[in-house]
């Protein structure tokens, strides 16, 4: 009884001051360009599908660019309202509204980059837990009914100020583990 009341109180807490401070530290260390290795599994896949590439943030319009180099080169551009897929020389654009989970993930990613707790909690209930050896875990669960239908949990794992892994679990059992590695050193500017 006591525990559930406590849990309710915690859930109702408007914001966690510790999380706010932590997000500021993460922001300072985040780069606008990181390498990634992604693994995913799900009902269609026999073995995890592994892909590699670069994840870029374009501050001008706060767009996120996922450039996949392997297994097949392709690029995804996520803006406020649109998904643009560039592959094999063809470009196709979709509304982000048909993919609520993408919109939420974009929002979450931006929130980390910009240290914006409010933006983070726009889409998610955030639970921040510290673990030994400077490790930490940020669990994000969807707020809206619509998002809940597709997305069950996003977990952000890290050490110190560094984000290392973003794990996404969808309601149909599909999952995705995005492992971020040191920023690429080449000083390249990101343009469209």
């Amino acid at each position: 009884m006591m525990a559930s009341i406590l849990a309710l109180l915690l859930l109702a807490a408007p914001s966690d001051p510790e999380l706010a401070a932590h997000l500021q530290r993460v922001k300072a260390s985040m780069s606008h360009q990181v390498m990634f290795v992604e693994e995913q599994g799900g009902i269609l896949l026999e073995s995890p599908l592994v892909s590699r590439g670069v994840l870029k943030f374009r501050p001008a319009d706060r767009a996120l660019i996922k450039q996949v180099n392997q297994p097949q080169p392709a690029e995804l551009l996520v803006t406020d309202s649109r998904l643009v897929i560039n592959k094999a020389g063809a470009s196709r654009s979709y509304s982000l509204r048909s993919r609520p989970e993408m919109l939420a993930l974009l929002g979450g990613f931006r929130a980390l980059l910009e240290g914006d707790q409010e933006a983070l909690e726009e889409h998610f209930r955030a639970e921040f837990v510290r673990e030994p050896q400077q490790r930490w875990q940020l669990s994000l669960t969807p707020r809206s009914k619509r998002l809940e239908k597709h997305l069950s949990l996003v977990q952000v794992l890290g050490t110190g100020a560094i984000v290392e892994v973003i794990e996404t679990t969808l309601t149909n059992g599909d999952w995705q583990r995005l492992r971020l590695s040191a920023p690429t050193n080449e000083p390249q500017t990101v343009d469209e």
Partner: protein
Amino acid sequence: MSGKTAPLLAWLAVIAIAGFVLVTRVSFSYDLALFLPKAQAPEQQVLLERLGDAPGSRFLLIGVPSTAQQQADIVGELAYRLDESALFSRVLTETSLGDLDRVPEPLWSYRYLLADVALDTEGLKKALQERRTELTLMAGGPLVQVIARDPHLISLETLAPFAGSTDGSWRSEQGDHLLIAETAAPAFDLQGQQAALQFINEALAELQVANAELSGVGVFGVGVRDTIRREATVRSIAASVALALVLLLTYRRLAPLWLAALPLLTGMLLGLSAVAVGFGQVHGITLAFGFTLMGIALDYPLHLISTARTQPAQQAARQIWPTLRLGAASTAVAYLAIALGGSEGLAQLGLFSLVGVIAAALTTRWVLPTLMSRPAAAAAPASPSKKTSPTLSWLALPVLVAVGLGCVAISWQGAFWNNNLSAMSPVPAELIARDTQLRQALGTPDLSRQIMLRDENLDRLLKRTASLDAALAETVGQGLVGRYQSAASLLPDPDLQRRRQASLPVAEVLSSNVTLAMADLPFKPAAFSEFMRSVEQSRQLDVLTPQDYAGTPLESLLAQFFYRADNQWVSLISLYPPINVEGLSGWLLRVDEKATVIDLKRASENLVADYRNRTFGVLGIALAIIFLLLLWRLPARRSAWCVATVLCVLVACAGLNYLINGPLNLYHLMALLLVAGLGLDYGLFLSRPSSAADAQHARHAVLACAASTALTFAVLALSDIPALSAMGATVATGVTLAFVATNMTARRTKAA
């Protein structure tokens, strides 16, 4: 005594029967199409068929102000909630692929008959590689369900062109996010529309969206109904008060108030039950116009009450009856003409007014006198003084005509009649303009210009649609049209469907193709078993027909392009701007000479003009009959004077209102009809040979009639509703003119 009570009892019995009929039989409809004439040209037919329940008419356009970044997904959440509600059949957002895990039927089940799909190893391998790439970009999610059953995503490809604008975002010019919710209820089902609007407003409130914009036919309908209810209530109370004041001032007694109301109410009750019996349902406009036209029934009791001030009511009734009967009969002939006007709405209106006027006249003659108390001045018996004929002056007539023509001349706007169908709409013009703006922002096709194909034979029409659809690509290249959309991909012709079906591989072949295609790809062997089952099922399907769309979410989408009307199938091809109508028509002649480019705006203008011309034709005949009727009962000179005066009053009244309002529409025409009836009534009473006392009674009654009518309609003229203000202004000015004209010209000479 029994001679007095018999009419009263008969009247009570008729009232009871009419009341019973009303309670048990009447229902109301608001379908405007009922009021339009039976269409002649094919273009007009398309217009009318679609006016009542055009697919776009169910669209509610919602504009959500884009505020803070934080609210970016509110549109998505709103769309989701609306989509979950049974009140809406479709919700279209920026891309309406909406929920990817739910491709609508029958498109989903028939996807392998609707498009060519490469199911050999090569084709499958290519499709699977593309899906793998997409997974690396956007892992999992709703798409996975579709991929497992449709690895080519052929269902989404087929649906994509219908999903609204495929490029460019759905934003209004202020940057509001737009979405379309298609209601399950047709636009004229105002209760259904209201429920839908309420749901949207509640959802907006829950999502804390302020200042959202709502537009669409349903919004107008509900808004107009509310405005009309409010306006009608306020105006009718104000008009009734005005009327009561005039009657009190004229007669200085209370009794005339309810006595005057009795024939009017009797007429309305009987008219309404006649329409209920004759047509089953009563149109809302029948009521509105009908009550207006029945205004003439107020004059009958006033003649009686004025005349009965100095003599017993029975005697007064007998005395005025010949003139009153003639006036009522003439009016009834005019209303009969309306009844034959060519549309069900006008037939209802005519029947309502015809029955109403006759009932009011009969009530005045037989019922009212038994209810009236003896006159205060009854001591003075009807003077047996000599009857004299008034001198009929023709002098005012040229003046009236000159006034009418002069008004039109100084304010000429190129046309006397307004042919725009929307001029008859009670919706304020700026709301309609805003709606058009929003629809343009959404890139919806130009519904007023389409290509139409018709055929009795369904298969032949489907083939013609498909070949025209393929050929039209060339016109886009030539710049004749921006883009086009037909039903060809939703409903391929049966031969093509069978050819596709025959080329689908059998289960074993497909299975081995899939296995070979999956080499080097990370998919599970069993991942596509659903897909293989779907292909196998597709081999067994009967071809897709229009009937298969009935009751599915795509029914309304298909109906936008393909429907059946009068033993014919109609296929429409939507055109997107820019459209070169002449160039396209010329091109069509070479490709499919039976196809036509229809221009609904032009068709609607022709329709309104035809309608008016037909009404004029029937009214001409009615006028001739009235004139003959008058000639039969009255001297030629008096008949000619009455008719000429009325016609000149109409010319002046029409001219004045043209000056006030610009080109006249159907509402003005209806109001002019009432003016004609009232003018004739005044003329008949004032031109009657009579004793000096009777002449005074007649003058008194006409003054009471004219003052009450003018005041009542002046109250309506101040309304915000275009129809009410047009009718109000026309009748108020017309009655004033008729009063002045008939009084001035009926000056009595002292001597016989």
